[in-house]
Structures are given as C-alpha cells and as structure tokens.
C-alpha cells in the first residue's frame, strides 16, 4: 500500500488518467453530442479575399430536400454592435471579426453563409449551390509587399514585451572583428489540430444553451457568447471535456461557435457546425516572419553586438503582436544589443498564437544566426554558446529564479555524443548520405496565472477536484489527479478530476505553458483546505487523539492525518468525517501570485530553457533530409509526470521538425487564398519522418518560480528545434538555408 501511494504522487510516471476513454473511443469531442431535432450547419466560404457581397442566390440551395434555412448577413439575428462587446482573454487590439455581420469581405474563405439542414449531406450539398456575387476590391496578401507598410502598433497587445536596448549595438557592430548579418524567413504555418473546430449547441428551450465547443477556454467562450448574443452569462454553459488538439487554435472563440450559436438563436433549435479541413486554413495561423540578425564578436568569439529586427504578418483589422526579438537579447552575454519589432498587414484573417508564439519564430531564427557566428569564429557551436553564456537575463538585467541550461547542454551533449563531432561541414558521411550535427538553445516563459479549483471529499474516501480548465492533450486531468493524490495521500482511483466546463471554478485559457504550474497550485491549495477541515472534524473523534494539533503539527499520509510528534497517533479522513457527521467536505481555493508575486516577477526572470541536438542525413542528389536523431535536454523545474511530460516535449520536437522541413502554407496572391489547404499539400510530419527522439529533464529545483516549482512544458519543446535541424543541415552540406522550411528545392538550388 505504501509503495502504491508513493508511486502516484508528483514525480511518478503513471498512465494518463483519461487514457482508457481515449483508446476505447468513448471520449466525446465537440461534434459528437447528439441531440434531438438538431440541425446540421455547413459553412459557405468566400471565394474572394476582399470586397463586398452584392447578391446571394439561394434558390438552388433551398430546393435541396432537408434544407431548413440559410443564414447570411441579410437575415441573421441581432449581435452586439460595439467591438468591446466581443470580449476575449487573448484577442489582439483591433476590430474582432464578426461572421455574417455585413456585406464586407475581409479575407478569402471568410464565412458568407451558413446552410442549415435536417441532414448532414443535405447541408453539404446545398452549401455548394449557394451562389454569391461579389464586388471585388484589390487585395494584398503578399507579405513582401506589405513590408513597405510595416509599423509598430500604438496600442500594444497585452502580452507583448517591447525589446529593451542596451549599450551601442550599431557602434559595436561597426567595430566588431567578426560579423555576421543575414535575413531569415519563416513561412506561414497552420495549427491543424486533428480535430477540426466544431460546435454543438444544445437549445435547452428555457433561455439556456449548452455549447459543446472545441476551445482552449470554456469560460472565455462563455463570456464571449453571452456578450455577443445577449444571453445572461449563467444561461450559457460551455463544455470541452475532450479537445482534439489545440496548439493555440482554440485560444480565441472561433467562427464555428459564433455561427452555431447564431443559428441556434435564429431557429430556436439545436445546431451543430463543423469546419472542413479546408476551412481550418481560413482562421488563425502562425504569422509569416522576416527577421534580420546582425551579430558582432571579438576575434576570440565573445559577442559584442546583437541587432535583432523582425516583422510578422497581421491582418488589416487586428494587430497581432508577438515577442520575436527579445529572446536572443535576454539569453546571451553581450554588452550591446538592440531590437526592433514591427507588424505588416495583409488581407488574411489575423495571425495568432501557435505553440510558443514569438519564441518558436524569433529564438529559432536567432539560434540559426548564432550558428553562423560560431562558424565564422571557428569555434564549436556548443562551445560558442558556453563562451557567451549568461547566468542572468541580460535584457532585463534580472537574475533567473533558476537556469540549468549549462546542465542541459552537458547532459544533452553527453547523450548525443557531441564530442565526436568533426568540425568541418561536409566532413561526416554515412554511405551515400552526408551527416550533419547541429545544436541550438530553446527558451520560453515560466508563467503563472490566477486559477481556482474546488475539492470535494466524500466520507467514502472519494475526492473530486474541479476547475474550468482544459486538457488539449497536455495531461491536465492527470496533473490534477497526481497533485491531489500527492497532497492528500490518496490512491489515484479514488480521485476524479473534472475540467472542461464553464460552470466550474474560474480558470484561464489553456495556453502559455502556465496550466500545470497554476492549476497544480490551486489543486494543492484546495486539497490542503480539505485537510484543514478534516482536522477540525477530527476533534469530534472519541478521545480526540490529535488533541489541539494544528495543520503544522500533522502529516497527511494515505488518507490519514498523522501526528508528527508521535507517528503512531493518526485519524483517518473517514473516521473524522463520520465523527463530525459530515457526508462531504467541499472547498474552493484560488492560487494567485498576488502583489508579492507581481513584485517578485519584476525582480527575477522566470524561464524554461533547453538544449537541442540534432542529427540529419542528407541525400545530396535528391535533396532529401532525414532527421535521424534528436536529443532535447530541458530545464523546466519540477516534473509532475515524467511520462506525459516527455510526450509534451516529443510533440514540440515533432512540430519543430515540421517547422524545419515541411510546414508552409502557400498563398496564391492572385486569388489571395492559401492554396495548399489540405493534409495532402500542407505537410505535417508523419510517423516515417520521426525517428529517434530522446528527452532529458535536467534537475532544476526551483521553489521560487511557482508554488509547486513547476515551470510548464507545452511550448519549450518546439523552441529552437528547427534551428538545431537547420544548423545540422549546414554542417552536413555546407549550405546555409535561411528560410524555413528547408524544402528539397532550396537544397538543390
């Protein structure tokens, strides 16, 4: 029994607690709730990128048997007028998009109608028959042309951190013995979670709606829908107990949920709307980016100047901003550094957060530039990073709560066998293939966000912990369960974790890698509060064995309160509750950084770090690159579950391989439309693309960063991975490809 309890707490590699539901197909996602009388909605997408709708001919569509209604801007129900009535937690400044609001077309594949039918096939068939006439206006979707209009928005996004310049970067660059200077590109990428955005709205008939939505924030969507469509907040319940991936695509309320609720309100019926895979390319995406990096160094390889400038794409109606240029400025010891960040508007939907927004772009590209400087300085790229290592955050001039990057380099290099690397490009081969080894650094924030959690202990020993968080595959159910098991010493099978329901205690969006740290802390607080109530109840136990012991005087072990001073004296939760006549103990607690947390955040930097080592094999005749090995050594504080944590990093690395070699959404500028809008043409890594990936978590105790010492893992796996691959490709081939993804055509060029 002892062994079992010890193996389920924080730090143990238990199987995912939601695993059985997922492998048996019982887990129900947003489009999988059947409700009587439900209508199927099929979205009609705009054929043009900019202009106005002149007329919509619905005759043929309405003639399809089973079609009930076609919703357009002409017959839609009332929605809120003011932009501020479209509240969301992670929206950028600007005018949020409103589907079917008026006749204006802002981007290609914008929804222009929603066909509602009794059957799925009828809706799909009829949607193809809706004839829309447009008044076409000139558009620009060419980022290169948009660069002429680049600017720094006056109103900044709340999450944006402007670069802080230091020293005289321009002067130091001029005087530097060694210089590298180049422009780098990152293509537009789409999140493409396997589950398409979908919503099932259940029209409850009494003014209430239940909304099963694919989102990363049920309360975010609840607040948005209530405000936009004029529901009392309590009458909107948003559920997302299972989410088929997100990676950021569910941070903002998507147009599927907006359309489904709009249709349900119009028809006073239940409605389901599912986007097609093609329509998944009509909303949020990682912005296209150009980044210019200039590095100066002394002859011995010590960095003397960093000039880091980047522009990312946004829409014409909102200004999405990311932290692209700050990472290298924070990470490297260098007296002179400057950064400049701007956005350039194109006629697409607004770009937005995709796994490690800003860092996946800016740190990755910076690490490609660092590799160039190491090569120019004729220093091993790992040695170069150690030579310019900084123990403090150089940009903010603050210490880190912890930074075990040196340890990550050491452990990663040892596991990879880095010492056997031959320095010269093109010097390693395996049969006909060139072999290359590359290294890069990753960096992300360790954030904490105010989160509430309830805990309910029943006299039979069952514990339920609940919060309106989400589990998009991140392992949140499992983290909640393990923290609760750890705090109260209960076995996992006596614990139920609930999330994905807006009616549960307040929780922020699932994003930014803050959930494990923040919700974990809230679960712990709630469980401790339960224990305190049990202790109070224990006074009613005959003879009051614990006496006047306070919480400081007792240990919590295996569902018992044990006196620290005499371990033989203990009271079980069940006995205490029975004695006090309690069937249940219920509490709700909130974990919050508070004012002291805010002050501490200004005094110290909180970040995760990683060292990524990659091996590629390149067939030079065909231009084919295979990533044969990756070692990613991660310094991310305390690890709650090594098994699910490793999976988080694997996922980030695989997406990083996609960034390096495959992923690129291509625009036809004549049509203003993303053309490769399918899995056949937008390539994400498949199983055969992914070979040996080793994940190491280096020891990094950090009681200061968050209450549990947890830093979060959702993003760090992708940051820098593509740079390690790109740097390995240079080492293999001697070719510097500065535009991601590195596709065959670029290598053969």
């Amino acid at each position, binding site marked *: 029994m002892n062994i079992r309890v010890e193996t389920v707490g924080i730090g143990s590699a238990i*199987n995912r607690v*939601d*695993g*059985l*539901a*997922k*492998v*048996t*197909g*019982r887990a*129900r*996602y947003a*489009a*999988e709730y*059947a409700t009587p009388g439900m209508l199927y909605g099929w979205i009609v997408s705009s054929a043009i990128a900019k202009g106005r709708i002149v007329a919509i001919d619905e005759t043929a569509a309405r003639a399809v*048997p*089973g079609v009930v209604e076609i919703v357009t801007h002409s017959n839609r129900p009332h929605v809120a007028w003011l932009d501020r009535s479209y509240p969301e937690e992670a929206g950028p400044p600007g005018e949020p998009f409103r589907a079917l609001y008026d006749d204006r077309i802002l981007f290609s594949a914008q929804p222009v109608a929603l066909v509602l039918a009794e*059957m*799925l*096939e009828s809706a799909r068939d009829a949607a193809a028959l809706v004839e829309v006439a447009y008044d076409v206006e000139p558009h620009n979707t060419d980022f290169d042309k948009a660069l002429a209009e680049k600017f720094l928005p006056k109103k900044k996004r709340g999450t944006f951190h402007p670069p802080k310049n230091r020293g005289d970067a321009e002067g130091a660059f001029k005087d530097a013995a060694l210089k590298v200077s180049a422009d780098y590109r990152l293509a537009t990428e789409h999140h*493409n*979670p*396997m*589950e*398409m955005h979908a919503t099932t709205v259940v029209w409850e008939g009494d003014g209430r709606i239940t909304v099963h939505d694919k989102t990363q924030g049920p309360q975010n969507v609840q607040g948005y829908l209530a405000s936009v469509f004029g529901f009392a907040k309590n009458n909107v319940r948003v559920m997302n107990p*299972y*989410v*088929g*991936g*997100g*990676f950021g695509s569910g941070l903002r309320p998507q147009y599927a949920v907006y359309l489904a609720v709009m249709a349900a309100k119009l028809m006073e019926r239940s409605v389901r709307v*599912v986007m*097609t*895979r093609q329509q998944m390319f009509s909303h949020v995406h990682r912005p296209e980016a150009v980044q210019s990096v200039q590095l100066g160094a002394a002859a011995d390889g010590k960095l003397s100047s960093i000039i880091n400038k980047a522009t990312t794409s946004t829409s014409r109606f909102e200004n999405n901003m990311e932290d692209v240029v700050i990472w290298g400025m924070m990470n490297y010891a260098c007296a002179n550094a400057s950064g400049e960040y701007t956005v350039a508007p194109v006629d697409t939907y607004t770009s937005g957060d995709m796994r490690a927004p800003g860092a996946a772009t800016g740190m990755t590209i910076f690490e490609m530039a660092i590799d160039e400087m190491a090569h120019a300085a004729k220093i091993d790229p790992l040695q170069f990073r150690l030579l310019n290592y900084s123990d403090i955050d150089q940009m903010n001039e603050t210490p880190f709560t912890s930074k075990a990057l040196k340890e990550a380099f050491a452990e990663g290099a040892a596991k990879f066998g880095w010492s056997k690397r031959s320095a010269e490009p093109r010097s390693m081969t395996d049969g006909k293939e060139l072999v290359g080894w590359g290294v890069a650094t990753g960096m992300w924030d360790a954030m904490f966000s105010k989160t509430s959690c309830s805990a309910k202990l029943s006299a039979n020993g069952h514990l339920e912990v609940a919060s309106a968080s989400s589990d*998009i*595959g*991140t*392992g949140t159910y499992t983290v909640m369960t393990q923290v609760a098991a750890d705090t109260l010493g209960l076995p996992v099978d006596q614990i139920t974790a609930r999330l994905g329901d807006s009616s549960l205690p307040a929780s922020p969006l699932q994003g930014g890698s803050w959930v494990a740290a923040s919700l974990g802390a809230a679960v712990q607080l709630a469980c401790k509060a339960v224990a305190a109530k049990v202790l109070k109840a224990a006074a009613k136990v005959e003879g009051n064995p614990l006496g006047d012991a306070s919480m400081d005087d007792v240990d919590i072990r295996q569902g018992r309160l044990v006196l620290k001073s005499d371990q033989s004296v203990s009271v079980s939760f069940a006995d205490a509750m029975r004695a006090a006549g309690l069937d249940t103990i219920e509490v709700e607690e909130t974990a919050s950084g508070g004012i002291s947390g805010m002050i501490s955040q200004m005094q110290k930097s909180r970040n995760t770090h990683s060292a990524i080592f990659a091996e590629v094999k390149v067939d030079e005749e065909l231009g084919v690159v295979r990533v044969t090995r990756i070692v990613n050594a991660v310094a991310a504080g305390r690890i709650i579950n090594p*098994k*699910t944590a490793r*999976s*988080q990093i*694997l*996922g980030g*690395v*695989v*997406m990083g391989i996609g960034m390096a070699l495959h992923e690129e959404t291509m625009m036809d500028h004549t049509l203003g439309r993303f053309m490769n809008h*399918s*899995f*056949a043409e937008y390539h*994400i*890594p*498949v*199983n*055969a*693309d*992914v*070979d*040996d*990936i080793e994940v190491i978590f280096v020891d990094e105790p950090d009681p200061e960063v968050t209450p549990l010492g947890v830093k979060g893992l959702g993003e760090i796996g992708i940051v820098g991975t593509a740079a390690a691959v790109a740097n390995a490709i240079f080492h293999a081939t001697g070719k510097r490809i500065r535009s991601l993804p590195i596709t065959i055509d670029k290598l053969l060029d």
Partner: protein
Amino acid sequence: MSENSSAAGQTCTISLELNGERRELQVQPWTTLLDLLRDQLGLIGTKKGCDHGQCGACTVLIDGKRINSCLTLAVVRDGAEITTIEGLGSEAAPHPLQQAFMDHDAFQCGYCTPGQICSAQGLINEGHARSRDEVRELMSGNLCRCGAYPNITDAVIDVLAKETGK
C-alpha cells in the same frame, strides 16, 4: 441491397456485420461509411479529421483490412464485416493495442488514436511489418499532430513482438 424511397429521399437497405452484430440499415447512397457510423449509429469512436482520406483518423477494419471510412460509401459495403474501435476492445477488457497505447502514452489529445489503433491492427493482420522502420513507414497514413509517433511505434512494436512470439 434493395432500394426504397422515403421522405429522406432514396435509401438502400444494406446488411453489415458491425462489431460482431448483424445490422440491417437504411442508408442514402451518398452517405459515407464514416458518417453512417458517427452520425446515424452513434459510433463516435471513429473520427473525422479531413474527410478526404488524408489523415487516417477514420480508419476502421473491413473484413480485417484497414480502410479510410471517409472514402467509402456505406452502400458499397453491403454484407461486409466491419470492426470499429468500439468493437476492438472495451473499457473492462481493452485490446492489447489499446493497453499498449496507454502504457506507452502513445497519444495526447486522443483524436487520432482510434484510427491509429485500428490501423495498427490492420498492419498486424497484413503481416508485413517486423522492424521499427517498417512500422514507421506503414503507419504513416495515420497523422498525429500531437507528435506521439515514437510512442505509437513503441506501442505497435510491443504488441507485434508479443503476437509474433506466439
């Protein structure tokens, strides 16, 4: 198969052996097997990830062979024996692949998982794959955006080894 007319338009009667149970079903000729399973029969374990045969989330076993149910019209499978994830194992008695996927953490969000597991069973039935590289290649019709591939391969190899060790 016979044809009927109803309010929902033309329908056909087909007979399927679905997860071990004989079913007589009225289907419209344009209904895919995927939509039949998910929408009309409530077997939501089979997932829709693209509807174009590009992602493998809808993989089911027809007469033991793995196929994309989104590219299959239900009417053309009259008389077929179909196994979906619901028929492969249960919560009380998970199939060895289902157990291996849990033990190896071979999924995160879980959306591609039923298709991966059905595909893996199809792969085992085919009897071609032995090595890790062969499994990776022959499981490449099933996309996983969470990037669980190394764990999926481990899980499949685990079960393959036990099957071939028999």
